């Protein structure tokens, strides 16, 4: 799977989580960019990605992420 394909799937996850079909995310996007991106949303985003990409993340990996781009990199490293 290419980085672009991963990004497309993550965009869908974000749009579903925040119920906004027009939401645009970038590699630099983080919680400060989206109003409803709180700790509960974080749990749901990560769990949705685990289901989508059929992988598990540990809490250390999740805590070290600074933005969406690093999440994409993490997913690529586990594929």
């Amino acid at each position: 799977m290419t980085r672009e394909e991963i990004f497309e799937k993550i965009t869908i996850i974000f749009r579903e989580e925040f119920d906004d079909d027009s939401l645009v995310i970038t590699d630099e996007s983080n919680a400060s960019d989206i109003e409803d991106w709180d700790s509960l949303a974080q749990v749901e985003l990560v769990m949705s990605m685990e289901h989508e990409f059929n992988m598990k993340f540990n809490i250390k990996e999740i805590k070290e992420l600074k933005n969406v781009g690093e999440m994409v990199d993490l997913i690529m490293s586990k594929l």
Partner: protein
Amino acid sequence: MNTFDYEELDTGHREEFEVTVTDEMLDSFRMITGDDNPFHRDDEFAVRHGFKEHAAFGMLTASFLSTLAGMYLPGEKSIIQNTEIKFMKPVYVGDRLIVSGEVAEKNDAFRVIRVKVAIKKDNGEKALRGSMQIGFLE
């Protein structure tokens, strides 16, 4: 009240309890929510719209999922984070409900469980199904 910690629960762990729906429950729900829709109190209205009698509020039936999480699975340490439900069949006064939940998934990173839930009537029909994502108080 159960007091399960995250570590004590395995995938497949199941809890259930029974509750019978009464008109008093409907009255209390109506008072709390202000939902005075005649479908939930007027038999003539309900029959006119194809039901055998006035039906219980769907959200009253769903409220027993709070009991399931808060008292049984996991119980005292429960924090409900997310609930998805579908209403399958109407519930009526006098129906005995079996409310059940089974741990379908555990997430070790966030210490949350996903519980597959169902509420069945004593005639075997499933009134409600769905899932809850539940965290644990530290």
